[in-house]
């Protein structure tokens, strides 16, 4: 009976953090608060018994996404630009209308965990009942993910792969010269062809520049 209380409190923390993120100008602080946000959402998933989702949120949200956000901050400015004067009427209207539509849409949704919900009427029952004999592994999530819905997972893996390729194509990769001596300072090993850091920066700026032994 404590679970609803935990749930409500975690969601309340999330709302508070979301408001703070909107108000904060320092992007570093925003990255920190996002890390808190993902910690909290993993807590909410845990309360909802969604162990695998919580696990993903724990691994991705707390670790990798914070690091990638900070790494992005090193490439951009640390502070948000000050906002323009005046009340932005048009965006506010759009946001309010969209929000109202979404809230209106939720009135049609079944209650959380409702056994009569449409999502539980088609194949979910069969997966849950037959997974034990057909697949033979205890974790139904894994059997749905990897076997029943193998096509989807293949698609997701391909998407991750494509995303990786896209980022490399846009940003390029730093490469170590293969025969380079071990330097005492990490800054000495800047790139493949460059000696001066500024020169390297200047031509690495060109997106998608074909490099030797290229990646794109």
């Amino acid at each position, binding site marked *: 009976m*404590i*679970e609803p*209380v*935990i749930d409500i*409190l975690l969601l309340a*923390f999330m709302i*508070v*953090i979301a408001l*703070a993120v909107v108000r904060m100008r*320092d992007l*570093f*602080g925003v990255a*920190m*608060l996002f*890390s*808190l946000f993902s*910690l*909290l959402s*993993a*807590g909410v998933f*845990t*309360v909802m*018994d969604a*162990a695998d989702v*919580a*696990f993903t949120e*724990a*691994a991705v949200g*707390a*670790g990798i996404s*914070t*690091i990638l956000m*900070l*790494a992005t*901050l*090193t490439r951009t400015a640390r502070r948000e630009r000050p906002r323009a004067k005046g009340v932005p009427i048009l965006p506010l209207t759009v946001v309010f209308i969209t929000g109202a539509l979404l809230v209106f849409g939720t009135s049609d949704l079944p209650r959380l965990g409702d056994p009569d919900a449409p999502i539980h009427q088609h194949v979910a029952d069969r997966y849950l009942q037959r997974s034990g004999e057909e697949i033979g592994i205890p974790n139904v999530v894994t059997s749905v993910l990897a076997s029943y819905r193998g096509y989807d997972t293949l698609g997701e893996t391909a998407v991750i792969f494509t995303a990786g390729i896209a980022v490399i194509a846009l940003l390029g990769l*730093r490469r170590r010269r293969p025969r380079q001596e071990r*330097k*005492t*300072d*990490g*800054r000495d090993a800047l790139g493949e062809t460059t000696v001066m850091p500024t020169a390297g920066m200047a031509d690495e700026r060109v997106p998608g520049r074909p490099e030797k032994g290229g990646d794109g």
Partner: protein
Amino acid sequence: MFTAAAIAVLITMALAVTRAILGPTVYDRIVAVNMFGTKTVLIIAVIAFLKGRHDLLDIALVYALINFIGIVAVLKFFEYGEFSRGGRGRP
């Protein structure tokens, strides 16, 4: 019994969130986030016990490990402003 623990941890989390939002310096925020991470590990473990689902403990375990990496990344970002420097040799 674990209800009491959950309430205590939730109160601590609320106070840590307060500091994370108020925090005048970035270091205050980092301290609050670090403390919050530890408390999340605790609350997930407590939830696992409240539900009697002990496989949820794996999530707490992964947090205990991953949270550290986040803090190290934050420190590195804050000390160097970039990620490619500061390896071996003089930082």
